[in-house]
């Protein structure tokens, strides 16, 4: 990253270099885990063999298993986990609060509700969608935006107080989940067998078309993330100091919330409401790479990918052939972690 490194003193350049080295190692782990994710199933396929199949070799049967059944599942896990993690990183930075994440701020709940309403309205008698799946992320984005806007409006004058945002976020998220549940029970839902996805989040039964939609959306969103990343550093300071440096914080905050909502919506559109990755992955990223922003975003993305690929692998190993949603694993690990953070803050901040 020569651009990021330009103008750094030797000390900061060293910190930055170390951060990117850590990112490179995490990237290798991500690739290794992805190969395991593709390899594991009713028959084990060697990572070496997977690479061969991916570049065009292998029997017809192998190609179907790897390319049609397993690879899209791992790909969506990587993209959705990564997108939520980056959303969490941005939200934690801009609210200056480590508890902020798309789940806690109600964005995941809102996006999930958006998708379920979309499916209920646009499914036909045979439970198949009457329109293009491209609109599914759009519905998720509308749901996510409505949720975050509601959180902002409810927080009112004190929208800059992170605690109020979090409290209203949790409330809005709970309402959205309840509404999702009601719609699933009473509504005609396309692919009702996957009802659990919109509540817990899962990555089974994914096809390449869906992966493609997410990948393209994510590529566009990432351009926004990089542009925003350059302006993120002053948000580490208190509001008056940040504004004193010429950052229009009230406007910038809305921009970042919109971007985080879009990233979350892309993840939720097909993988559903996987919780806590947006909370945990950025924490782990900052623990490993420290303060550099771009490296922190890259590490968050990769760690989020690792977490969802890993969670999916765990449910497959433990419960196959029953499909248990991967989101249950992230929730089982994430909930105690969230409580730990709340209790720890309680003991230091009164």
């Amino acid at each position, binding site marked *: 990253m020569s651009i990021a490194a330009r103008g750094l003193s030797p000390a900061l350049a060293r910190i930055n270099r170390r951060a990117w080295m850590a990112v490179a190692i995490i990237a290798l782990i991500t690739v290794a885990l992805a190969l395991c994710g593709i390899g594991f199933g009713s028959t084990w396929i060697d990572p070496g063999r997977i690479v061969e199949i991916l570049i065009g070799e292998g029997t017809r049967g192998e190609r179907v298993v790897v390319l049609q059944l397993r690879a899209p599942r791992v790909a969506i896990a990587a993209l959705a986990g990564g997108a939520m993690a980056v959303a969490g990183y941005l939200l934690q930075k801009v609210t200056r609060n480590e508890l902020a994440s798309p789940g806690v701020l109600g964005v995941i709940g809102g996006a999930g509700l958006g998708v379920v309403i979309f499916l209920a309205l646009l499914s036909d008698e045979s439970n198949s969608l009457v329109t293009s799946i491209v609109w599914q992320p759009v519905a998720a984005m509308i749901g996510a935006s409505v949720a975050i806007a509601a959180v902002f409006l409810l927080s009112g004058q004190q929208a800059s107080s992170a605690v109020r945002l979090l409290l209203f976020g949790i409330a809005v998220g709970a309402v959205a989940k309840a509404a999702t549940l009601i719609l699933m029970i009473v509504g005609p839902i396309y692919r009702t067998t996957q009802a659990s996805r919109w509540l817990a989040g899962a990555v089974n039964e994914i096809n390449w078309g869906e992966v493609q939609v997410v990948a393209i959306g994510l590529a566009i969103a990432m351009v926004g993330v990089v542009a925003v990343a350059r302006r993120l550093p002053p948000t580490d300071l208190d509001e008056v100091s940040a504004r004193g440096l010429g950052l229009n914080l009230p406007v910038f905050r809305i921009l970042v919330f919109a971007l985080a909502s879009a990233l979350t919506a892309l993840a939720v559109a097909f993988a559903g409401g996987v919780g806590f990755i947006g909370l945990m992955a950025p924490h782990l990223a900052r623990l490993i790479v420290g*303060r550099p922003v771009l490296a922190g975003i890259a590490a968050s993305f990769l760690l989020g990918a690792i977490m969802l690929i890993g969670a999916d692998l765990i449910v497959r190993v433990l419960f196959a052939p029953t499909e248990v949603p991967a989101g249950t694993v992230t929730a089982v690990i994430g909930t105690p972690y969230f409580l730990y953070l709340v209790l720890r803050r309680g003991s230091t901040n009164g």
Partner: protein
Amino acid sequence: MDKAISVKALTIAYGAATAISAVDLDIAKGKVTVLAGPNGCGKSTLLRAIRRLHQPKSGEIRLGDMPISGLKEKELARHIGLLAQSPSAPDDMSVEELVRLGRYPHQTMLQPWSAADADAIQAAMFGTGVSHLAERRLGSLSGGQLQRVWIAMVLAQETDIICLDEPVNHLDMAHQIDCLDLVGRLNREHGRTVVLVLHDLNLAARYADRLVFMKDGSMVADGAPVELMREALIEDVFGISCRVIEDPVHNRPLCIPIRNSSPRFGAAPAA
């Protein structure tokens, strides 16, 4: 008088409550102006308004000839630096990283970093005597060191005007003097226009070229310390009866408070 900033009929309200009303003030270029007054008099609000952190209800603030309302955020930040009343930054941020943030308003999409930025950071850290702390984490610094680092950040911004909102509030006596001497040097040696909000009247009288007294959101008096440090005026503005003598070291007026004379605190209980 060359004006750096002129405030005209400025009124600012928080909801229904008026924080400052109809303030007219010219801030002289290259001088140290100190805003003083009792708690809640609106001095910090005025300072933040000068940096456009409050939207005026009416009136106008001009930077030289330009109304500040017409300037872009970063443009304004290249003219006026602000040290907040209780600034905060993450404990694990390094000193150099914080000072670098002062260059934020000078960086653009096309030119994210220039040699001038590196020079400004070095000069700011040298000028505030924190160069040797560059790699230290903010969490490991003492209060006095930390305040110098924050001043270095504002200095790196290379603005003609520097606003400081109660910069010595949390410092002990030695560091208060140290900090204000530093600010005075920036003014004298670098020609920066300085606007300070100070609580301590004697420090205000010692460091100000010009004093501004505020009370209940209005400007009460404005002039050189020797003109304003009069017993009757201080009693009126601050609600204390006092004696004013000449500080034998700096030849500035020195206020010796005697007792609270303000009716709002009630009469002293009978002994």
